[in-house]
């Protein structure tokens, strides 16, 4: 068993391999032991079971696409909230403020870029939307940095204070938004190239929903790669599980947390911009209106789980969309019903922290 006793202090002339070297498995294999295919299977099953209830296949496709698009936007908004909760045990109800600021900044920048964004050319519209998205993300990233320093850092470890102070902070930010932009409804009109629908046979497909689904998938895959293949991702996953041990290994977890908080705020800002485009009209309460849904997604997905946040968002949005079509009177309770059902099945959420 013990075959060598000579190399503890002085590493001999040995070849140094990167940690990702020979011992590294492909991404899929790396994640295989943590694989948990029931929740995605549940989403697919839900969609399939909805088909006979909806009846018409084209309607079902339209509803499913609407649910997926909504789910992707909610995922983008809620992922940062989930990570912050999982990583630092911080309940930031003020996260909704980033959504509102993202939407408002997007509206202002879109107004300023009017000529480019609404020029009618695909390249102009695409470039304009990218600029709008970057502006929304940058502004909310800066806001996130200030927000963490002012409102979050003083209340680490105290959930009650976190809830009170972050709700207060959300109200402050909303009021600042109103005083800066005014109390009128804001508009964020979609460029022509992503407006309206195209048809596939009998199926009407809304263009922006396709954009939202594609963008959501790209971001999800990007986050999976970040978490599965990079050292910072490894650090975040470890921090979500046991931040004290991460510190004891020599990492400054506070810096990681600030980075995650700022990135989460930027994603919420992007989500806010997308939601603004999706709704085209909104008020300063746009974030607060979505807060309950974001919290439900975080809880059912599993605190600190990007995978859980993604599946939870899709589940919630699809149920809401189908119920809204089939039983409109029950639409409001469908979110809570999903949460209760999931938590009865898995009290700690669909996925473990750090997955």
């Amino acid at each position, binding site marked *: *068993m*013990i*075959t*060598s*006793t*000579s*190399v*503890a*202090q*002085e*590493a*001999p002339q*040995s*070849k*140094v*391999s*990167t*940690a*990702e*070297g020979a*011992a*590294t*498995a492909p991404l899929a*294999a*790396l994640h295989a*032991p*943590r694989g948990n295919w029931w929740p995605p299977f549940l989403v697919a099953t839900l969609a399939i079971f909805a088909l006979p209830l909806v009846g018409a296949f084209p309607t079902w496709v339209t509803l499913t696409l609407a649910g997926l698009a909504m789910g992707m936007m909610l995922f983008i908004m809620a992922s940062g909230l989930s990570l912050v909760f999982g990583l630092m045990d911080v309940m930031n109800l003020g996260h909704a403020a980033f959504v509102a600021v993202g939407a408002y900044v997007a509206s202002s920048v879109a107004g300023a870029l009017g000529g480019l964004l609404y020029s009618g050319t695909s390249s102009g519209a695409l470039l304009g939307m990218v600029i709008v998205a970057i502006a929304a993300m940058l502004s909310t990233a800066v806001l996130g940095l200030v927000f963490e320093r002012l409102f979050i850092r003083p209340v680490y470890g105290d959930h009650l204070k976190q809830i009170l102070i972050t709700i207060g902070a959300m109200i402050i930010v909303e009021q600042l938004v109103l005083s800066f932009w005014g109390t009128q409804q804001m508009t964020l009109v979609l460029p022509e190239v992503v407006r309206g629908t195209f048809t596939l046979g009998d199926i009407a497909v809304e263009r922006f929903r396709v954009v939202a689904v594609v963008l959501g998938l790209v971001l999800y895959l990007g986050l999976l790669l970040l978490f599965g293949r990079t*050292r910072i991702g*490894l*650090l975040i*996953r*470890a921090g979500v*599980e*046991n931040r*004290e*041990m*991460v*510190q*004891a*290994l*020599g*990492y*400054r*977890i506070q810096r990681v947390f600030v980075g995650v908080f700022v990135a989460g705020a930027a994603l919420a800002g992007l989500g806010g911009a997308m939601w603004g485009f999706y709704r085209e009209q909104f008020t300063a309460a746009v974030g607060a209106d979505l807060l309950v849904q974001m919290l439900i997604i975080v809880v059912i997905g599993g605190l600190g789980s990007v995978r859980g946040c993604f599946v939870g968002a899709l589940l919630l949005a699809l149920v809401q969309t189908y119920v809204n079509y089939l039983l409109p009177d029950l639409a409001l309770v469908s979110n809570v019903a999903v949460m209760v059902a999931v938590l009865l099945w898995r009290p700690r959420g669909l996925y*473990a*922290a*750090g*997955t």
Partner: protein
Amino acid sequence: MSKVDLLRLEGVHTHIGEYHILQGVDFAVPDEGVTVLLGRNGVGKTTTLRTLMGLWHASAGKVSFDGEDITQLDTSEISRRGIAYVPEDMGIFAQLTVQENVRLAALSGRFDEARLQWIFSLFPALERFWLRPGGTLSGGQKQMLAIARAIIEPRKLLLIDEPTKGLAPAMVQNLAEALRALKQARTAILLVEQNFHFVRSLGDHVAVMDDGKVVHTGSMAELASNEEIQNRLLGLGTATT
């Protein structure tokens, strides 16, 4: 044995909330060999290690490491000065694979291949379960992973908190062999343990705690041969000595 103190605690007090846990701890750890911190349950051994690591800060007193005052340093800074910590609960990242657990502990981001092979020779199970999540390992395997993580890069001092707790006898024997190998490789170890049988052949120096203070220091040989001290400070009966 070297006479140089690698770690020194002088009059260290630690409060946790309203509780005054450490009440003036004084002892030193030489730069070689195994120093064993003994004592009954609840006397402050784990608190001492956590205070050393900066996980709880001392309210008074001084902790020096390698000649530097580290009393109020952040945990990550203390770790980067060359102290590795294996907590009582082992601190394994359950969702991360064994490889990822070890990779995270290699601050350089690289494995020294020879060192990794040496660790595998100490703990063959880790090589076998390299791509398994840490949470699926047995208690003994988790302890080995925790120690492997602590030694994947050379450290000046290992702090290990009750490594035999809950382990099967065969696993304890395996662990003892691994710690002997580390000791022979001139890694200084501060070991908190209640299992006197486990540490009597392993330890070089002892510090015995009672009521938040160190009440006895000396060599392990002296303690092992003195039943009166064992009875009085550790509550060990004649049969167990």
